[in-house]
């Protein structure tokens, strides 16, 4: 369970104050598939950064699992990131000097998982992604779709509670984009909460729950509508 209450995140850009998140409250249950849409600058990416503990809110409360993360020590926040959250970025963010397998093993290296277990788990993930033949290739030798699949493998290898995807298909052609979406949705079907930020309404419409952002606030959320339908 994820609960944000009155989350505020302001930036100052010169004299101007940008209210990226203006007292946002949100509750997401385990296993949900949520898309966050809105024009650029509406605050949707900031929401994702705050939820991923990449950014710190100015005020408010953010409970992840059953732990309050606001005011948490830096080390504890790093622990939460590596144990509970998987990231998928638009620009993949693979380490260029590491092979596909090594990129997938990286979160486990950072977590201190034993080398033998790392290999076994990376192999399993590579097989599941259909990348076992590309395991020893560097990112630059992979296509965009393959790179994003490696990045997704990296996001799930630590068995996170939630995957945060920021425009995961933004750099891909429609076919590889579709494959990536299918993969993410499969992961969601296996029980991982999926939150995807996108400016693409068609893509966003695939999610059961759709949240629309504007000027740092939630403009619409079909959560209650769904609840009523049930």
């Amino acid at each position, binding site marked *: 369970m994820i609960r944000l209450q009155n989350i505020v995140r302001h930036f100052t850009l010169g004299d101007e104050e940008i209210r990226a998140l203006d007292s946002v409250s949100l509750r997401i249950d385990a296993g949900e598939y949520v898309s966050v849409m809105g024009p650029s600058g509406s605050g949707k990416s900031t929401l994702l950064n705050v939820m991923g503990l*990449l950014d710190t809110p100015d005020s408010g409360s953010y409970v992840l699992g059953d732990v309050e993360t606001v005011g948490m020590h830096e080390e504890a926040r790093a622990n939460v990131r590596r144990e509970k959250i998987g990231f998928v970025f638009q620009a993949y963010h693979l*380490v260029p000097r590491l092979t596909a397998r090594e990129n997938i093993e990286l979160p486990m290296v*950072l977590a201190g998982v034993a080398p033998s277990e790392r290999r076994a788990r990376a192999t399993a993930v590579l097989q599941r992604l259909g990348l076992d033949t590309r395991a020893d290739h560097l990112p630059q030798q992979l296509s965009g779709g393959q790179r994003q699949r490696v990045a997704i493998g990296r996001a799930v290898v630590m068995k996170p509670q939630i995957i945060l995807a920021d425009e995961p298909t933004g750099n891909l052609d429609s076919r590889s984009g579709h494959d990536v979406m299918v993969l993410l949705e499969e992961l969601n079907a296996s029980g991982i909460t999926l939150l995807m930020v996108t400016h693409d309404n068609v893509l966003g419409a695939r999610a059961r729950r759709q949240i629309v952002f504007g000027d740092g606030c939630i403009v619409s959320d079909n959560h209650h509508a769904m609840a009523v339908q049930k």
Partner: protein
Amino acid sequence: MKTQGISWRDSVFFAGAVLRRYRFRTSMMLLAMTLAVGSVVAFTALGEGARGYVRNEFAAMGTNLLVVLPGRKETTGGGGPPPIGTATRDVTLADVKALHSRLHGAERIAPLIVGTVEVSANARTRDVMVLGTNADYFSIRELVVMNGNSFPAMDNDVAQPVCVIGSKVRDELFGSQQAVGSWVKMGDRRFRVIGVLSGKADASGFDLSDGALIPVASAQMLFNREGLFRVIVQPRAYYDIDKLQQELLGAFRELHQGEEDVTVVKPDSMMKTFDNIFSALTLGVGAIAGISLLVAGVLVMNLTLISVSQRTKEIGLLKALGASQHHIRRLFLLESLLLCLAGALCGVLAGELLVLLGRTLWPSVPFAAPWWAVFTSVCIALLSGLVFAWLPASRAARQQPVDALAGKLT
């Protein structure tokens, strides 16, 4: 699942992989460290070599000897030569004779007069350094006579016209002819060659292969000089040399009407003085070379800063994947430490190779880097790797993940 964070082993591997990836930066840093550590090793080896060389020279001068110099030294202790300009009273053969009867601790006493004179034979002439002395001198200096004999046992004041010449003098004056038994002319006097010294006859820095020895009384006449240049006293086995030194001074005080107007030098203690001077010198050049270690340290800081700014996105990613500040700092510090360690080892190797080269080129100088210089320079290299990389590594660790992922270094 509960996790501990990146292990030390993986941190080292990770840092090592980065170093292999950024080859140019790595090799620049290696070069700087190699030069820095290598110069400390090489320079201290040079200092040690000089020290060893001087030691050997003193050892050749004879350890466990006392050397009497006319004239009074001003200070006690190390014992340098007397200051120039003090009025001195000659040490004479009569003094030497008196010493024989007074010093029971003395095994041998060799008076010494030194001068250069024109020596000619077979219509060939050359300037030769001539030592006037007695038979004891041969024993003290362990001179070996190759052909003929050394001086016969005789009183110091008997001026026999005989000489023992060095091998080089023999070669130049006689060539392949028989030298022993021939006559040579020294100044306006004639001497019969009774012996030739073997090969390299080294006596306290004089190369006697290029010299000649004549009885001390003959030398007094040849050089028209009454006073002795030196008197060399060799103590009996197991006789305390410091006691003998005191007895020697006492004897001269008695002989010279209560005036202590000679200096008695123990080459051993002079060696010690020079040893101290050269040790300080080694330390000095080592410290100067050590400055290059600091320069290399500044380079470490620069290159780590470059590394941090080049890899801002990677830092962001590592943070997103759950690396803490502590772990990021450790990764960058390890990078620097590995570099400095590798550089220091290369430096030690390069320095030792130079030492080897030096030993080959100048076999008489015992070049050797002292262990403390090697140890300290490696330690300082590692320490500077840690200290100078601390700031950039901490900067990397401090980055907000969201900014770093966007490539913004704050």
